[in-house]
């Protein structure tokens, strides 16, 4: 008699695949253990900079995105030297870059300041896209399914929005975005209204990056949860004999469909993050 088999835990499986870890999992071939460093203590704050799975995929995404864009840039430069338009892969990547630059960055920030912020918006787009796509690869992980990564990107976006606004509007102009002057109000009423609006304005500034971080994180994680949960059904009903094959086939078909959906979501969420960052930068640049 064999020992009773432990019931399959979908939650454990889902968190195992979506959570961060100090190892790279290449099941069934094995795992690679990542080094663990001593955490840094800054007062009560403990900072562990040990590389994790998400750090590795973060770096991999950056290296892959840079390499692919550099190859495209080389192809474009070669085509330019030969006096022709780039074709194939270089042409496709050029279309992506030009779309993000013109239709997202410059269209929302403006012709004057748009080109200055375009590299940041383009870097956001390609970095996030690559991280999203890596989560769909076998043995892959999506760092954008981790709130720390999306929060860091949102903080960068927030800093660019606010510092860029301060540089453009000047200190007085920037303070006007926190303490707004209400048109038509004068005297003590205007002061009271301005002071009353200040918390709302500060809150609206903070909500933007929070929304950016939560939206990207939520969308990417939810997709992985759906896929992994559907996979979990296969294991849950694995003991049903012949029925399990039918359930497996149906589940695999649904998972395939969701994977296609996730592919679209990967592009869409990169686009949304880049677009909203550009819109927020543009709004601040044109604030009066």
């Amino acid at each position, binding site marked *: 008699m064999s020992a009773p088999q432990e019931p399959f835990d979908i939650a454990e499986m889902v968190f195992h695949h979506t959570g961060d*870890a100090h190892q790279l999992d290449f099941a069934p071939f094995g795992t690679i253990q990542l080094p663990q460093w001593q955490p840094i203590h800054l007062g009560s704050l403990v900072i562990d900079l040990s590389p994790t799975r998400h*750090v590795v995929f973060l770096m991999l995404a950056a290296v892959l995105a*840079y390499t692919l*864009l550099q190859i495209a840039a080389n192809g474009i*430069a070669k085509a330019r030297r030969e006096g022709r338009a780039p074709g194939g892969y270089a042409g496709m990547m050029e279309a992506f870059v030009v779309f993000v630059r013109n239709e997202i960055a410059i269209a929302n920030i403006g012709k004057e300041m748009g080109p200055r912020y375009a590299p940041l918006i383009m870097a956001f787009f390609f970095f996030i896209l690559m991280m999203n796509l890596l989560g769909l690869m076998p043995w892959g992980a999506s760092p954008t399914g981790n709130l720390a990564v999306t929060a860091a990107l949102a903080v960068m976006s927030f800093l660019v929005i606010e510092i860029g606004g301060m540089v453009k509007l000047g200190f007085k102009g920037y303070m006007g975005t926190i303490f707004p002057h209400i048109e038509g109000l004068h005297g003590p009423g205007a002061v009271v209204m301005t002071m009353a609006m200040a918390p709302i304005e500060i809150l609206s500034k903070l909500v933007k990056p929070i929304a950016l971080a939560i939206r990207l994180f939520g969308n990417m994680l939810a997709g992985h949860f759906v896929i992994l949960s559907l996979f979990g059904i296969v294991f849950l009903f694995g003991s049903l004999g012949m029925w399990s094959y039918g359930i497996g086939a149906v589940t695999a078909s649904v998972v395939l469909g969701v994977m296609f959906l996730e592919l679209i979501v990967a592009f869409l969420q990169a686009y949304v993050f880049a677009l909203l960052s550009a819109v927020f930068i543009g709004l601040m640049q044109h604030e009066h």
Partner: protein
Amino acid sequence: MMLPLLYATGEGGLPAPFSPTIGLFIWTFVVFLPFLWLLSKFVFPVIVKATADREAAIAKQLADADKTRADAAGYLAEQRELLAAARGEAQGIVAEARQAGDRERIAAIERTRTEQDELLARAKREIQGERERAISEIRREAVDLAIAAAGKVVGQRLDPAADRKLVEEYITTLRTGA
């Protein structure tokens, strides 16, 4: 039921995705900022410049094409004007030639008619002159014959001049009376 999941920890004691770590937060900056710098330095300028150059070249070609088209339209209008002018001139020449021909024909007819009339008048005048001369001749012959006859009858020589005058007056009265 979901609450324990939200606080569950990942593998190796690491928190699940809902509880972010400061280390990964910092790593994101460490990875993204050099990525942004490298792209801004080596990749995007190449792509943007190539695109801008191509856009400029296309814009120039379009401008050239517009200019050429405008020139062609100008030349076409000019050619049309010249053609219309040439056609008008040709029509003028034809009309003038036709008028000249008509004038010449009318003049020729007129001249012919005049000459004809002149010839007719002259012929009439000549006929009239001839007839008058013939009549005068006949009359003189008749007078001479009458005088000669009268001389024979009278038997003496008469004054030819006075007789002639007398006979002629008589003949005139005869013609008038007739």
